């Protein structure tokens, strides 16, 4: 399949789910979809289009928490990024870890640094942060302030 055919197929198939489709450059495509249709789209891209899951990146953009799932289709040199926007107060989304194992660790990471709840994740433990890190403090949220009063930060930027 060529690039045009795949993009047309995606647009056709997920007509109801796509919020916004942004064809940035020959190698990059951004697709904003509804959070509830993530598993459907991601499994289609991973299993049927034989894409490789690169990574998910979570972003706190002050208005919403965005998660971008990047998939690369090597045979046409295209990177498809699925974008979902979640409610900042109660971010929740279905987990992709049951679909493919590659999503396991990154969801654990996003869970602890941005506080997104992945429903259906098999093992949502802490990955990177220490055990004494307080609950409900997420370092990559934009309103994060130092919780530890003992920390020494004695040098200017």
């Amino acid at each position: 399949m060529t690039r045009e055919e795949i993009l047309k197929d995606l647009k056709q198939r997920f007509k109801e789910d796509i919020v916004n489709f942004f064809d940035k450059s020959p190698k990059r495509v951004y697709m904003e979809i509804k959070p509830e249709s993530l598993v459907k789209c991601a499994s289609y891209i991973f299993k049927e289009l034989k894409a490789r899951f690169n990574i998910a990146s979570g972003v706190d953009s002050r208005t919403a928490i965005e998660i971008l799932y990047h998939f690369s289709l090597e045979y046409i040199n295209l990177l498809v990024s699925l974008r979902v926007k979640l409610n900042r107060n109660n971010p929740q989304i279905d987990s992709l870890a049951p679909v493919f194992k590659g999503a396991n660790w990154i969801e654990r990471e996003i869970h602890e640094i941005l506080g997104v709840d992945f429903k259906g994740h098999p093992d949502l433990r802490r990955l990177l942060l220490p055990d004494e890190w307080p609950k409900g403090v997420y370092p990559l949220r934009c309103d994060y302030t130092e919780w530890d009063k003992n920390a020494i930060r004695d040098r200017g930027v």
Partner: protein
Amino acid sequence: MAKSVIPIGPYHPLQEEPEFFTLTVDGETVVDIDVNIGYNHRGIEKLSELKTFDQSTFVIERICGICSTSHPFAYTRAVEDIIPVEVPERAKYIRTTIAEGERVHSHLLWLGLAGHFLGYNTVYMWVWKLREEILDVMEILSGNRNNYAIFKPGGVRRDFNPDDIPLALRKIDSIVPTLNKLKKAIIDDPVLHARLKGIGILTREDALDYCALGPTSRASGVAKDVRKDAPYGAYDQVDWDMIVTQNGDVFEKVVVRVLEVFESIKIMKQCLMNLPPGEIDLNIKNIPPGEGIGAHEAPRGETFHYVRSDGTNRPARHKVRAPTFMNLPTCKSTVIGETISDATIILASVDPCYCCTERMAVRTSEGKRIYGGQDLIRLSQEKTQRIRRKMGIK
């Protein structure tokens, strides 16, 4: 037989970095494994948001000492993807040379450590002796042994000195015969065959399911390499082959890495000989708002950076995905069922790099203590004093 739990790490001579594996073993056979990382987490993604686009390059370089060009390479490509621009030809060649030099030294480093894990210290010493030569080449070309500090968004920071290039080429040529000898010694060693063949097999299906990257997946027959699939830098202008093997055991991973060293040397030599003239830097001043993605085939697999700019001079979000992050979870499928002796080399065979993985569980497995921390310190200080007195130090 009762199952027991073997902790590996966090401070373990297996690797120079801290990591913590909990192996549940039945006799000598591993029945379960749990990976507990985070001893290296420094919050680089957050730090990067505090720095300007130019300063970030230096922070990114210190994500990992071995991958100190892979991360800046991917990061600068991500920034250039926001604008978007193409860097000048000469800069591309310089970047490619440095990146391949890093691949050579990283693979040699891993090879030496693998020898060390197997108790084969002679290989460790010989390979690291060879690695010093490559570091010398890098020092000639870039001025630094490890953190080359040569990348910047829009080009490279320093040009190669034309007088140094023949010297570097001579030095590279002088490495090749020794490398050939080493290749023969490693690939034909019967004891290494006995130790490494058929253990820790990662099947092709598992490699795809875990989204494994780099030599780890290429040893399992997954022919994916960013340098071939989405060419960047000078990779589409030089002649080289992708090394793919089929079995996916530890031995094949060694073979892939050894052969890749030769390909990298080939690329380095071609780049140095055909270095095009011209500018090396675009002098990018403003980064418009937007998002960019950059990928680079690091020695361990694809490094992936996502940068978002909001029009200021600092990244609004910078996501770093190191290859080990995807490769390490494969240990679930490779280690279980093997013995403890093999577990270490299998865990090492993905060439784990925790510094990268954790950019950013203390279990009390070493026994419960009756003293509190303060008591222990006091006791230990008293003891030190006593011994110091005994030994005649004030």
